[in-house]
Structures are given as structure tokens and as C-alpha cells.
């Protein structure tokens, strides 16, 4: 039925027995052909220009425009060709049953189960041995696979590079003296020797001039108005980057969690579920800021055996 020879409309008009589905959609096929040719010529011109510009160098905009116009020409031409210079149809195709016939299914089952019974079922012992062999190989291969991937977590998540007495340094490794930061100032700091480490990143904030107690039990943690909190958000681990001095809040840019600086970084807004761990600070005899101890809880987002 779907014979697709090219037919001119005029012939269809002469011959009333002609299948009208074979008529072209285009009323004036010759003109259409010229239009399509024009489209293709646009394509040729653009692609030639692209070659020239490839050699001479040009801008991304010119490259994009030429490529878009070139393929646009080909595209419009092809669609028009397929639509207007083809038998307009509609054509029809029958559906056939997708599933096999009952006989075919039965024949298949006979072949599969029938033959299988003879060859396989009576030898189930062999099958079990084969299964065992593959299972052992499977278990064996877990070893190299997991080793190739990476280490087990162990207690890597429980502690950071901060130790008792770690000197607080800037991202350039410079130690910080008591009067380096003015009230309202803050900076990202690391334990000396671990500059740039992910879990060592800590926010040093100067929230006042006298000692600050953020919660009972942290009496000595904020000497001379200096407070330090882990910079890793307890929500999804983004680095917290903004300190709003008027409200004494820290803001995480990822999902806008807010933490109250003066109250042990208790989350006050957004999805973060836990306060930021606080680093107990001290000031050594030379006036440098150091850590009294490491963090006393895991930093960052939650995990199963937190």
C-alpha cells in the first residue's frame, strides 16, 4: 500500500483513479524545490564560512551563529523536502499480535524444559558445584574491588587536625595575635601545619573585647571576645561564609541556615539540625591565639554512627 513513487500533482488531476494519498502536499513542487535548494545553499555558505573562520580565528558568537544558520538551513530544507515533496498520505499500517501464538509458546517451552530436563535436571549436583564456584569467585572479587575504591571510614570522621595547643593560622599560614581582628571582624583559620584542610577550616570571629561564654561549661572558650566555630555546615557540609555582626549570626550560603554566634552557634533558621562545633580558644604567653583542645564532637553533616 505504501508505494512511494514520486507523483506530480498535475498527473493526479488528469487521472481520477489515482490514489490521492500519493499526491504531494506542495501545490507548486518546482517552487518548493527551489526554496529547499536555497536552504541548502545557505548551509553550504555557512559551513564554508566556518572553515574560513576556523583558520583565521573568530568569536564564539560568530561560530555559533554560522553553525546555527548552517544547520538551520539544512534542517528547514530537509523538513520541507520530507513534508511537501513526499506523498502526503495518510498511510496506514496494520498491527499484528505482539505475543507469539499458543503453539509457538508450547513448542518453545517443550524445547526449553523438555531438553533441559534431560541435560540439566538430572545433573543438579553439577549445577550446584558450578554455582558454588561462581559464588566464591564473586565473594573473592569484593576484596580487590573495595580495596581499589578506598579505605574504610574507621574513626576518620570523629576528629580533625586540631589538637591541644594548635596555633591558629590564616589561610596563608600566618599566626594571629590578639589584636589582629577588630570587633565584628572574622576570618577563616586553620590549625598550623594543616592550612587548606577541609575539616580543619574554622571561622574565627571577634564578637567583643571581653571573654564570651556561649553556654555553661564553655567558660574559658572565648578569650577576649574571640570565638571559633567549625566552618563546615552541619547541614550538607558547605563552608559557612558570612558573619552578620548586627544580628550576631553566621549564614550558610547553600541553604541559608543561620547560627547564633553568641549562643554556641545554635541553628536558628533553615535546615541545619545541629549547632556548629565550637573550638575552645586560648591566648598563649606571646599573645597568639591557640586551641585549648581539638573539637569535642564530630564536625559537619550527620552520618550513621555519628
Amino acid at each position: 500500500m505504501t508505494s512511494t513513487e514520486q507523483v506530480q500533482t498535475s498527473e493526479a488531476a488528469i487521472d481520477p483513479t489515482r490514489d490521492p494519498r500519493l499526491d504531494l502536499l506542495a501545490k507548486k513542487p518546482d517552487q518548493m524545490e527551489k526554496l529547499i535548494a536555497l536552504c541548502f545553499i545557505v548551509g553550504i555558505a555557512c559551513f564554508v564560512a566556518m572553515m574560513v573562520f576556523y583558520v583565521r580565528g573568530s568569536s564564539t558568537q560568530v561560530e555559533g551563529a554560522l553553525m546555527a544558520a548552517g544547520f538551520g538551513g539544512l534542517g528547514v530544507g530537509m523538513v520541507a523536502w520530507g513534508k511537501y515533496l513526499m506523498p502526503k498520505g495518510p498511510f496506514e499500517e496494520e498491527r499484528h499480535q505482539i505475543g507469539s501464538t499458543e503453539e509457538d509458546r508450547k513448542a518453545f517451552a517443550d524445547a526449553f524444559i523438555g531438553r533441559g530436563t534431560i541435560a540439566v535436571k538430572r545433573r543438579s549436583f553439577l549445577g550446584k558445584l558450578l554455582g558454588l564456584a561462581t559464588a566464591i569467585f564473586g565473594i573473592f572479587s569484593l576484596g580487590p574491588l573495595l580495596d581499589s575504591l578506598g579505605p574504610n571510614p574507621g574513626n576518620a570522621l570523629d576528629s580533625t587536625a586540631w589538637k591541644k595547643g594548635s596555633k591558629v593560622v590564616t589561610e596563608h599560614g600566618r599566626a594571629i595575635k590578639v589584636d589582629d581582628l577588630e570587633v565584628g571582624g572574622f576570618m577563616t583559620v586553620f590549625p598550623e601545619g594543616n592550612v587548606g584542610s577541609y575539616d580543619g577550616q574554622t571561622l574565627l570571629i571577634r564578637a567583643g573585647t571581653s571573654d564570651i561564654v556561649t553556654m555553661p561549661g564553655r567558660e574559658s572558650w572565648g578569650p577576649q571576645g574571640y570565638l571559633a566555630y567549625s566552618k563546615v555546615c552541619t547541614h550538607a557540609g558547605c563552608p559557612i561564609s558570612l558573619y552578620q555582626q548586627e544580628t550576631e549570626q553566621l549564614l550558610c550560603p547553600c541553604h541559608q541556615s543561620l547560627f547564633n554566634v553568641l549562643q554556641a552557634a545554635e541553628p536558628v533558621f533553615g535546615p541545619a539540625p545541629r549547632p556548629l562545633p565550637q573550638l575552645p580558644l586560648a591566648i598563649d604567653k606571646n599573645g597568639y591565639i591557640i586551641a585549648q583542645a581539638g573539637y569535642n564532637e564530630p564536625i559537619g553533616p550527620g552520618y550513621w554512627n555519628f
Partner: protein
Amino acid sequence: MPSLLKKDKPKQTGAEKATAGAKWLDDRLGLAKGGRVFFNKIFPDHWSFMLGEIALYSFVVLLVTGVFLTLYYVPSADMLTYHGSYAPLKGTQVSAAYNSTLAISFDVRFGLLVRQMHHWAADIFLGAIAVHMCRVFFTGAFRRPRELNWIVGVTLLILGISNGFLGYSLPDDLISGTGLRIMFSVVESIPVVGTHLAFWLFGGNYPGNGVIIPRMFMLHVLLVPAIMVALVGAHLALLVKQKHTQFSGPGKTEKNVVGTPMWPGFMFKTQGYFFLVVAVLAGLGGWAQINPIWQYGQYFPYKVSYAVQPDWYMGWLDGALRIMPSWEFQNFGYMIPNMFFPAVLLPGIAFNIFIVWPFIEAKVRKDYKEHHLLERPRDNPWRTSIGAGALAFFFMLFAASSTDVLANYFNISLNLVLWFFRFATYIIPFFVAGITYKICLELQALGRYGGRRKRFNVVLRTAEGEYFSEKTPARPGDLDVLSGEEEEPLELTEEVSEKIRESSELIGVSSTELNKLPPPADQGVKRVERD
């Protein structure tokens, strides 16, 4: 010996050569019979069938542009000093990956074009898949026998989203690094195995020992695309085997397919669509900047950018993270972290529902029959309203990924916006579903097949600007709006059929049934509003 004289041999024409070549192949492969059937495969002529094609061609563009990118991209986190031609970064420390992406953008001819085309193709690929999936869903094209192809399609969507995420994590810029960090937390939040998985993926505690970039590269350019190519092949093979669905209409039945044959009409048109997709992507790649990584800078784990917004297809997950209340559950020394609910459970449930939907629906509706004729969305208000509700839900999540932007834009407090989304995301979908249900019933009332129509009053405006109201003429099976009783159909005189035609046009009824009517007396068009 005349046979030695080549001149004597008759010269073969081009057609004869082609025939001989084809014969040579068929002698070895036996393709003629199957090939003819294949050429006769019919493609229904409906615009909505083109959505899948757009997805397919964007995928082809992804493969081609992706291969070009691999020739320059260096999958390594090793640090080096930047010496390329982008002045503001000269002399800074960058990773080899970031360095090579900068080189693609500034120092490789056509590099930025191809890179931006690749990124745009990813966005359009996933967009086309999503819309294509809606088409399949709302018309019931996934019903028996096409459940398998629905599952293949959902799998392609999941793999596409994953590969998109892997792809935009490759340049190692500040935004992609932040995304990766969030992904580490997501994996880490999975109960029992999460920490192990995260450590295995990244080769240690975040940021790992530098293996994540080469690993993602391998996944992004090899493993995932290979699986996707195989699945796309399976998708199309199933399509050929099971043949297309079609909307009902004159001459279209459960037993046939009406439209354009594969060869030559469809092949030509679809080749044209391919070129057009390339053209659009080239235009976007050339003119619409996307992911200007040189503005973000190299990723360092302690730096963060303010404009952290993922590609659009990840937006709904980002929104879900934002509106999640700050809960975390700690029991017996174990924790179910906050991230688990929005980032693992939510997509897990969503994709699983997608996958099993055809079976749920068959069971609920006790409809296990084969279907080749599509339903119009209104004809299945139950499904349509569930789908619309789900879309509303995803849209709300997506919008919630811009809480800060919205708060700024409308100058309201972020607090208010957040609480709005925390409730509205769950409430609005129900409204949308309800309204959709109503609309479906209303549309059905106007429908053409079997649906019992209510009769409406139509307000007509004459050319002189005068308004008058008129009841639409009754057709068989019509109900009176007020009494709800069946009305006597009018006799089909020329005048009556003209009126039916007119009123049907007003209310958007397609012409199928009307085609049976005698032609209208006059073609004058009136501007009309429905009441």
C-alpha cells in the same frame, strides 16, 4: 579474444551499481524482507511525538560534543600554575582539570562553542525527556504492552540526571566543588552503609585523595553513556517492535497505525529535525553563556560561591534540601541525618513510583488489556489529576530552590518564604489535582467520543458589536445543563449542522465528528466568548 577488451563490457549505470551492491549485502545478511517492513513503519503525525526525537538528537549532540571535549579535558586534580590567556587568573594555582576547561573555553578554537553546546544539550536533553515523559504519562501510552519501554525511559531519565551532575562536576570550579561536597553528605547520610559508600567513592574522607575527578570522568564519558546508548537502542527497538500508539481519529483503530511511513517521508523530516536541534543548540552555545567557570574560580574546600544554584534538573532536590525542617534522629548511638529524607528518600520514592506506575494503574483500574489508542488527558481525569498534582509538587520543590532569590526579589523575609514553601509544597498539589479533575470533567462534557456533553449557552458577538446568547444545538446524547435530562437531538438539516460546527469551534471541539456533517453555508468568522 574479445573478452579481454574491457571496452566491450556494457557500462553499469549508477542505479545498476547500487542494485549490485545491495544484492551483495543481501546475499550475506538477508535484510531485504525485514528492511521493507521497516521502511513501511508508520509514524503518527502529531507534534507531541517529536518530544522524544528532540531528546534523542540532543543525546547525539552530547555524544559528539563530548568526544571533542575529551580530546582536551584533563581529568586530574593536580595543582599547577595557570598560564593560559584568561588574564584575571594568570599566575594563580588551579587544578589540571580546571586549567584544561579554561583552555577549552579560551584557547581552543570552537572550544567554548562546543563546551557551551554540550552543556545546553544536557539541559535540553533532560528537559525534552521530562516533557516526553509527561506526554507518555498523560495519554496513557505506557499501558500494556508498553510498560517495559516506560521503565527503560525512566531509567534513561535517572541516568541522564546522574550524568549531568557528573558532567558539571568535572571542571572543578567553585560551584561544581560545592555540589560535590553536598553529594558527599548525601551519600554519607544513607543509614548503615552511607559512610562506607562515601569513602569508597571519594577514596577517603572528603575531599578524598584526588581520585574523584578521574573516577567521575570515567563514569561520565564511558560507563554511563555506554549504558545509555544501549538503553536508547532498546527503547527504539521496542518502539519498532510494538509500533507507535496514536490518538483516536477518523480511520484510526486499535488495529492499525496511520501516519507517515519511515521511508522516505519520516526519514527526511526527522533528519531535518536533527539538523534543527543542532542549529538551536549551536545558537544557544554561541550566544547564551552557560556555566562561566572562569567567573567562579578554582574550587578550594574552604571557599564557597554565593550563587550556588545547580543545573535545573537538580533544582527540585536542592529545594527539597532547603525546606526540610531541621530534624535529625539519633537513637542508640546511630543517626539518621537530616539529608537522608530530602536527598535520598524523596528521590528514591519518586523514581520507584515512576517505575511501577504502569502496574499500579493497571491494578487500580483493573485494566490489563492492550491499548494502542491514546487517551486524551481529560478522558482519564483520575490519572491526569494525579499527574498534575505530582508536577505541581516538583515545581514547588524547584521553586523552593530559589527561596533566597524570591525573598530578595519580592522584598519579603526569607523566614516567611521558607515557611510558605514548607507548607505550600504539600498543599498546593492537592489543589492543583482537584482543579485538574474539575477541568477534565468540564472538557469531557464537551467531548466527542461517548462522553456525555452538557449543553452550554454561548455568547456570540455580531460583526456590529452586538452580543446575544444562544444555547448550543443538541447532539445525540446531550444533557441539558439545568435539568440533567437527555435531550432530543435535532434533525441534521444544513442549517443545524452549520450551527453545530460553529458552536463546536467556539468550544474547541476538534472536527472529527463534524467532518461527517454537510459543509457550512457560509465561512464568515465570528468572534465569540463563552459564558
